[in-house]
């Protein structure tokens, strides 16, 4: 029996990266509310240890058929990325399936703005402790990567040092922390520079070495540079999210300073980058939605249940506000019923091999005898395998001998596709198998993309109908809903297929049939509706 390193699960990152993909969703991430979700999509596919081994090596032949099934249904799943489960169905699924399975995932969907707001509200709690202006606490928090505990610990130990270190105050002044306080604080050096913008005539900036009448900016430290240089400097620093300091010393620019210099709300950018690096650091609990341009962040407070998911070969699927579903564990899109290991193995394999394979598939043929891949780089169709010396015809891949002098008889069209190739080598067998599954995978991916496009078209057509024609809102709504429900139902269907426990399967058999029937009926209803619209002349067929 041939071992295959991966199972066929249609997961691609290309799909995620599809630039058009996110457009279908109405991004809700701008909304400020933080919604909590409880994961309900997880269904029971408790694994019979005999069927699935812990590692990612699978003996495909054992359940080749079911593999195929899964590929297909998962593809369906792919086709309906933009769909969501309707509420009633979802609840049923939950009730029926979550028994005896993994714990529900409690997570919230956030955005960087949300997180920043949370941080700000925490700041309010800290204010009485610190008793310094909010702006300064913000600097401290930013410096400590929003780690309150560590900050508090250090704060109690060496408050003054910390303020200097982070650039809240200068070494010379005691705890002069803010603009307001500065005025009251007698400066030790005597010439206290005012924080902010000034206008200087023939100012020579040591950064750009220009001598001109210009606005300048400086902090209390007196390191004064022209505003252009300062802008350039800040612009370059906004992305990494660290506290921005004076160019010559460690005195920090507060958000207010940044906005003063930049002339707009650049500090927001800085805060966003800072939050981003915070998320990066806490990537066990926080995960970006992997979909292109989706700004949602999933925050899982308690990651202890994740281990249970892995153990049972479940995948902790989460859903962001833009309805993108993905696996919290591996960051790929939903990949049930395969677990993360299998998915990773497949993706890795596909990634590694697909480029080569694509080339090989499009440029070469296999020698009919030994299976070696041959590229034809010129000459006639009389081929001689350089490996096994077998002579054959490039067109029909048959033995050359019978071709004799009647050249190219084989160019006659035949429908007979029976190929009697025998793989003698194990290697080519494995490759064949992989190629086969890759093809299947590829085909499904293509059709998923096409279907998604179709869905898009229908959506826009419906909108156009509503706007331009005399189709009532109700009718238009029916069409939209139909598509949506159809998508959801297909997703449900694929979820039902995840069940591996025999008892569960029996229990869900009826539901499966019902659902299939439902999908079919819906499809007919939709088609009938389309037909009616055509018949009544409301719509016209286009290309």
């Amino acid at each position, binding site marked *: 029996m041939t071992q295959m390193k991966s199972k066929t699960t249609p997961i691609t990152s290309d799909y995620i990266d599809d630039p058009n993909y996110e457009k279908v969703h109405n991004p809700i991430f701008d909304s400020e509310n933080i919604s909590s979700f409880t994961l309900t999509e997880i269904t029971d596919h408790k694994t019979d240890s005999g069927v699935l081994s812990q590692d990612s090596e699978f003996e495909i032949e054992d359940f080749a058929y079911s593999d195929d099934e899964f590929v297909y249904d998962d593809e369906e799943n792919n086709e309906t990325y933009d769909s969501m489960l309707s509420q009633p169905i979802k609840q049923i699924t939950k009730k029926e399936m979550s028994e005896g399975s993994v714990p529900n995932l409690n997570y919230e969907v956030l955005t960087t703005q949300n997180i920043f707001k949370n941080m700000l509200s925490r700041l309010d709690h800290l204010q009485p402790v610190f008793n310094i202006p909010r702006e300064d606490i913000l600097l401290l928090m930013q410096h400590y990567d929003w780690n309150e505990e560590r900050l508090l610990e250090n704060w109690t130990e060496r408050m003054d040092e910390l303020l200097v270190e982070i650039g809240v105050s200068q070494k010379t002044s005691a705890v002069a922390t803010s603009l307001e306080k500065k005025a009251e604080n007698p400066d030790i050096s005597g010439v206290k520079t005012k924080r902010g913008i000034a206008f200087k005539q023939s100012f020579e900036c040591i*950064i*750009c*070495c*220009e001598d001109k009448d210009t606005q300048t900016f400086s902090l209390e430290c007196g390191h004064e540079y022209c505003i252009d*240089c300062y802008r350039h400097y800040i612009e370059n620093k906004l992305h990494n999210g660290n506290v921005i300091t004076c*160019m010559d010393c460690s005195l920090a620019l507060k958000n207010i300073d940044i906005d003063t210099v930049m002339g707009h709300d650049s500090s927001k950018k800085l805060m966003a980058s800072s939050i981003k690096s915070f998320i990066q650091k806490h990537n066990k609990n926080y995960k970006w939605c992997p979909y292109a341009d989706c700004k949602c962040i999933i925050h899982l407070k308690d990651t202890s249940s994740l281990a249970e998911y892995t153990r049972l070969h479940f995948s902790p699927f989460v859903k962001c506000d833009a309805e993108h579903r993905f696996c919290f564990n591996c960051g790929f899109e939903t990949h049930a019923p395969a677990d993360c290991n299998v998915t990773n193995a497949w993706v890795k394999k596909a990634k590694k091999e697909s480029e080569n394979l694509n080339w090989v598939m499009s440029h070469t043929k296999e020698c009919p005898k030994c299976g070696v891949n041959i590229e034809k780089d010129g000459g006639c169709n009389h081929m001689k395998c350089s490996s096994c010396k077998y002579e054959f015809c490039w067109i029909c891949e048959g033995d050359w001998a019978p071709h004799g002098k009647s050249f190219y008889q084989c160019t006659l069209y035949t429908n007979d596709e029976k190929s009697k190739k025998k793989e003698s080598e194990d290697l080519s067998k494995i490759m064949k198998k992989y190629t086969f599954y890759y093809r299947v995978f590829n085909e499904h991916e293509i059709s998923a993309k096409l279907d998604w496009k179709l869905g898009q078209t229908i959506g826009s057509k419906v909108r156009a109908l509503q706007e331009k024609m005399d189709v009532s809102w109700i009718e238009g709504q029916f069409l939209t809903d139909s598509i949506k429900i159809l998508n959801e139902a297909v997703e449900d269907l694929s979820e039902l297929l995840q069940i591996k426990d025999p008892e569960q399967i029996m229990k869900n058999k009826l539901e499966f049939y019902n659902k299939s029937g439902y999908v079919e009926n819906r499809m007919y209803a939709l088609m009938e509706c389309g037909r009616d619209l055509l018949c009544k002349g409301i719509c016209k067929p286009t290309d």
Partner: protein
Amino acid sequence: MSRAKRIMKEMQAVKDDPEAHITLEFVSESDIHHLKGSFLGPPGTPYENGTFIVDIEVPMEYPFKPPKMKFDTKVYHPNVSSVTGAICLDILKNAWSPVITLKSALISLQALLQSPEPNDPQDAEVAQHYLKDRESFNKTAALWTQLYAGGDAAAANNGADPDEADLYGISQELVQEFESQGFQKDRIIEVLRRLGIKSLSPDDNDTVNRVIEELLE
């Protein structure tokens, strides 16, 4: 625009301060963004009396982005790649600030030669050497200074190829011992360098066996 002006000014500043023994020159007149700088090895270090030439590339965004610097002169130092001359120094990376000039950067390099940071190495082999056997490291670093940076013995050494073993601070006895067992000198040095072995006590059979194993591969 400001970049050209600033570079010219920095050149002038270097010229105005001959005491620092720092030079800064354009590689070609037509390209003001490619320079060569040089400075003297800090006294009291193995780099003393050497003149170290640094290749400087000034990026478009200069002075908001750091210049790209690497040693043209071969340097035996934990924070400098002994092969490419690449430098591991924070001010040339994220700690860069627009107030730093090419001159002050060169002075920082000088300071780096004075006080290596073996815990943040660019060249792991050299850093190992530095941490394990400082005396031997110093000898090698001084040899490199002599050979490549025109140190005091440069004249005495002209023409003669340095011994490979000395070049990497590997003890001659050790090389000879393996040579007597019939191995090629190049191969011995290659293996010893790979394993980071500079010298061995004769009764350390485990290590000797490991070296031989490698040699036989």
